[in-house]
């Protein structure tokens, strides 16, 4: 079967291709965070294939939409999606984490087209996105700012400081998408530091808040389409989504897939990528 090539205008096709690349690159690089990447990849695919006004030809456009992946440890997901969408050569993925390679284990802006902010320390992406959104609103520029957070990241105080500021300044050009996979570094989020009632918290901070199935492209797209205030989309996701032995397991926050794991994983990913 012929391999489907990017760029994709269909989130499902982009996500399927990206899942293959994520599993390959984390295995080859013996890198961590494969499950975090599989958790967030449908959100990123929806943004880059459908919802966000951003493409390689628009990188200098001051009205382009901005996507910030604040959970920088999911770099393999963002890099796969950007490569498949033509922001940089797909061959770069094979060198992920190698000496002097362009792509490393946490999202890095330097020399990587499409990356707006280097991340890896949690709680930085939202304040930064807030700054862009605030400046654009004052300058009457049209693009929106999408910041993708992990749920564990919402332990950080900067998230809630930002939530207050965005509401106070009426930033209806700012969208937070929380990858709510319910697992953080050492264990489940609710056993670490309770986030629930999570949606109520965002609502109490004045955000238009929706809880959406996080692997449902139509639902994500619909939620991303409109806003009249700062918007928080809590995307209900499964860590390790798409590969049964990686799903909902704390272990796969760190473990890197072996060659056997890759074969087994690929058998489970349907479709012709």
């Amino acid at each position, binding site marked *: 079967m012929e391999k489907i090539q990017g760029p994709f205008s269909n989130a499902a096709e982009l996500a399927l291709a990206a899942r293959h690349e994520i599993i390959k690159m984390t295995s080859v690089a013996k890198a961590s965070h494969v499950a975090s990447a599989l958790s967030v990849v449908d959100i990123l695919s929806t943004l880059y294939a459908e919802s966000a006004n951003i493409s390689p030809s628009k990188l200098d456009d001051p009205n382009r939409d901005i996507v910030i992946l604040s959970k920088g440890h999911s770099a393999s997901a963002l890099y796969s999606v950007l490569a498949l969408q033509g922001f940089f050569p797909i061959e770069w993925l094979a060198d992920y984490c190698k000496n002097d390679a362009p792509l490393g284990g946490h999202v890095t802006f330097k020399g990587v087209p499409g990356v707006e*902010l280097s991340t890896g320390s949690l709680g930085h992406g939202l304040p930064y996105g807030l700054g862009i959104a605030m400046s654009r609103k004052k300058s009457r520029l049209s693009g929106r700012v999408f910041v993708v957070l992990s749920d564990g990241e919402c332990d950080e105080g900067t998230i809630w400081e930002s939530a207050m500021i965005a509401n106070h300044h009426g930033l209806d050009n700012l969208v937070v998408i929380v990858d709510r996979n319910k697992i953080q570094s050492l264990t489940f989020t609710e056993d670490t530091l309770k986030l629930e009632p999570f949606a109520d918290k965002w609502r109490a901070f004045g955000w238009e808040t929706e809880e959406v199935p996080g692997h449902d492209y139509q639902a994500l797209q619909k939620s991303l389409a409109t806003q009249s205030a700062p918007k928080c989309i809590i995307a209900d996701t499964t860590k390790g989504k798409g590969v049964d032995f990686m799903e909902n397991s704390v272990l796969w926050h760190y473990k890197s897939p072996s060659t056997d794991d890759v074969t087994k994983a690929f058998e489970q990913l349907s479709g012709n990528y």
Partner: protein
Amino acid sequence: MRDTFVKTLLKEAKKDPNIILMTGDLGFGVLDEFQKELPAQFINSGVNEQTMMGLAGGYASTGKRVFVYSIGNFPTLRCLEQIRNDVCLMNNSVVVVSVGAGYAYGSQGYTHHALEDIAVLRALPNMDVIVPADPHETVGITRLLTSTKNPSYLRLGKSNEPAIHEKEIEIEPGKINELSSGKDGTIIFSGSVGVVALEAAKELASEAIRVSVASMPFVSRVDVEYLKSAANKGPIIVVEEHCYRGGVGSAILETLSMNGITAQVALVASAQTNLSQIGDQEFLRNENGINTKSIITKFKALLVS
């Protein structure tokens, strides 16, 4: 110094709408005029320095020059990683502005004393650390900072610092400004503590010891040529209102070492003997060894050796 800074910034910001002044809810009575005259270029983000600094980075990334204003440790140590990652790493056009250098907030206590900030911010890549000595230097340096784009740290005193230059001076990045010239040695200082250096020089002069006194505002761009000639002349005393670890003296010693310059150097900085001691700026400087006596004793010791 802070009033001079804000006044100068306002003047420049009226000409350039890309200049933004951001505060973490401080500057009562100091920032009012700026806020009133240029509301679109003023942001009070609230009491949230970490978020404010990240916000400043993002804001600057849209083509603005963002001045982030607060007291001493708040826009520096409190949000260090945001400065490191969102400003320095991204090379965003942000100027961190702190007021209350050293013991300027003396009786307000140690939380308000800025004594480690130079060391910490000087360690960051891409960061230009600048410490003006008086209102005249502040004018030129503020103007300079409105026309450049690199991440910078402007460490200001508070209010009513005496002018040590007779008039406004031409600011040249990386250049040490000599106030008086003497053949027997040099006292280099950064910041409003220059008054102590000048006083010490006067006392030495009464004993027929003539020293040069020089202000070094550009802490992260040390004037190597000046140091070379100072080292040839005699002892060098470095005076700063900061702890010994990693401050202006360290910057000078590193520069001497990296350039293979041999010199007789002694540092006069805060001994930090009692962190919780209360008192005004002059009292705390004196208690912590930043005084004419330390300067003179250390200078004479080097002169004899």
